[in-house]
């Protein structure tokens, strides 16, 4: 598969035509999309027009952007002006946003070619894309297995070569887990590094946009483009994002790599074996392995599954059949709200709205939501102590390789456990990324997760690059 950086180099120096690159990717989509279902919408005509424009600019000697001619797919929860944005929900089916998300504006300004909108678990709630109202995405490595989720379409699109890169969003692991299951790189940046303006909100204190790519250098290149302060997002960090590509070849000699000695149980042995191999590789490259403890992360699922649904129940109150999306008519306003929401939301979304509404309701707030916020503090404090002793932490990304369709759909808690290694990062607001690191059971891809502290992306990328080199 063509690397993002090679496409940019070729298109910029004129040796490669952006139009030809787009056609190659469209041809792969034609060949395999009916089997994979990575996309809710392929914007082929617009992609061809945009690619032709890049080629014209190159020919005219104009300066082109840092992503000139790169085919990129967007998770279908990022607003694209005039182009359908559904969140894989019936309630938003047909909605054409009146504005572009900041990341979309940045991608276009950099010369990227948007290929379409990718499938997800409805409103990004899920770990397998089985909660999409439009049917699941298949794992390109084995179509009887899930691609992970919620950004399963974005992960599959890169894995299948439908796009050189894609963007996803990560609230509790929704970039990293599908990246691991599909064998690609997936990055959740520090909360506030990438603007959330135009990202349809799930849990606002946890959501963050990040890239999927086929290697670490591509991820660093794409993340540099989409990062930066945005006055349209009040939680955007008001300082320049750190340079990432420049540190990739620094190596890890002398760096401290944290090994969590009280990791939550339930990880499959094939995945743990790859984690051990990753520690060995880093040790051989001169890093120092440090034992650390994170005693409170055993409570991360409870904190997360109270906080995220609470925020979601509030954020999703806006789908009321008044300003956008679909409506089910009824005689009065309240009946219209209830009928619209009952018909428009799928089961998992309703479940989380109910859980969140309950956790926030009078009489239960202190017992549930209030306590969860305190546990969030404990988890954050655990990380703070750990990062006094180490520069990064290494864990599995997912407890297992990609699982079969239907194997967890009847048991919400079993599905929630898929995120046990990824959730703590979101609660703390830290960056983390999944790097493909060989294969496990049934030759399916395994990802290793590199975690760092707030704005510790440089350290994280150094280690990720070293892991990739060692393979």
């Amino acid at each position, binding site marked *: 598969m063509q690397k993002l950086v090679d496409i940019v180099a070729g298109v910029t120096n004129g040796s490669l035509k952006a139009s030809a690159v787009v056609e190659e990717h469209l041809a792969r989509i034609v060949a395999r999309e009916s089997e994979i279902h990575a996309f809710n919408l392929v914007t082929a005509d617009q992609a061809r027009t945009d690619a032709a424009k890049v080629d014209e600019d190159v020919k005219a000697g104009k300066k082109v952007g840092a992503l000139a001619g790169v085919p990129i797919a967007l998770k279908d929860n990022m607003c694209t002006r005039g182009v359908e944005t559904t969140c894989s929900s019936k309630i938003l089916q047909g909605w*054409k946003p*009146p504005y572009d998300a900041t990341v979309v504006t940045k991608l276009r300004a950099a010369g990227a070619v948007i290929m379409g909108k990718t499938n997800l678990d409805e409103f990004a709630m899920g770990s397998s894309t089985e909660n999409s109202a439009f049917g699941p995405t298949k794992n390109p490595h084995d179509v009887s297995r899930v691609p992970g989720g919620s950004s399963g379409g974005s992960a599959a699109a890169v894995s299948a070569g439908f796009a050189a890169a894609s963007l996803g969003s990560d609230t509790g692991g929704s970039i990293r887990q599908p990246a691991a299951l599909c064998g690609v790189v997936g990055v959740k940046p520090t*909360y*506030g590094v990438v603007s959330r303006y135009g990202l349809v909100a799930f849990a606002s*204190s*946890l959501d963050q946009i990040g890239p999927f790519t086929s290697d670490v250098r591509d991820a660093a290149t794409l993340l540099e483009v989409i990062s930066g302060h945005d*006055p349209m997002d*009040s*939680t955007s*960090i*008001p300082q320049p994002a750190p340079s990432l590509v420049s540190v990739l070849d620094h190596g890890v000699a002398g760096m401290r790599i944290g090994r969590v000695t009280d990791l939550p149980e339930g990880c499959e042995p094939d995945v743990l074996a790859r984690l051990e191999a990753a520690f060995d590789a880093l040790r051989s490259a001169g890093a120092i392995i440090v034992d650390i403890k994170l005693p409170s992360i*055993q*409570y991360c*699922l*409870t*904190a997360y599954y*109270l906080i995220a649904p609470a925020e979601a*129940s509030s954020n999703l109150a806006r789908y*009321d059949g*008044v*300003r*956008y999306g*679909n*409506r089910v*008519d009824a*005689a*009065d*306003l*309240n*009946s*219209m709200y*209830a*009928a619209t*929401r*009952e018909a428009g*939301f799928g*089961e998992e979304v*309703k*479940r989380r*709205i*109910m*859980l969140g*509404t*309950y956790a926030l*309701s009078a009489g*239960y707030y202190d*017992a*549930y939501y209030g*306590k969860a*916020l*305190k*546990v969030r*503090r*404990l988890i*954050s404090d655990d990380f703070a102590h750990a990062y006094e002793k180490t520069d990064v932490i290494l864990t599995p990304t997912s407890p297992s390789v990609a699982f079969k369709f239907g194997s967890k759909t009847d048991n919400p*808690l079993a599905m929630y456990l898929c995120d046990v290694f990824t959730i703590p990062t979101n*609660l*703390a*607001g830290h960056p983390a990324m999944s790097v493909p690191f060989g294969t496990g059971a049934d030759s399916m891809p395994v990802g290793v997760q590199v975690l760092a502290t*707030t704005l510790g992306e440089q350290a994280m990328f150094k280690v990720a690059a070293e892991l990739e080199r060692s393979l």
Partner: protein
Amino acid sequence: MAEKISKETVVKVSRLARLSLTTEETERMTAQLAGMLEHFRDIDALDLASVEPMTQPYPLKNVLRKDVELPSLDRDEVLDQAPAAESGRFRVPPTIGFDV
């Protein structure tokens, strides 16, 4: 922590959430929520009395921009996406005169 969630509570919460759940959904939701809330009891063992709640991951203060007019969304484009609009406004069913 609170007692096991009842069907009556689920019905009440669904009303707060503006969801008109079917009888079958209510039954299923009651069992599933009870299962989850049981799992969530693991934090009951923690002493949290002196712990400060954490509401956001990055400490930022609210800032106000200067009170000057800036371009906004195009009204026609916005209303074009509404389920019902009339005379430059969103149109909704009657809001009063019915039980809520």
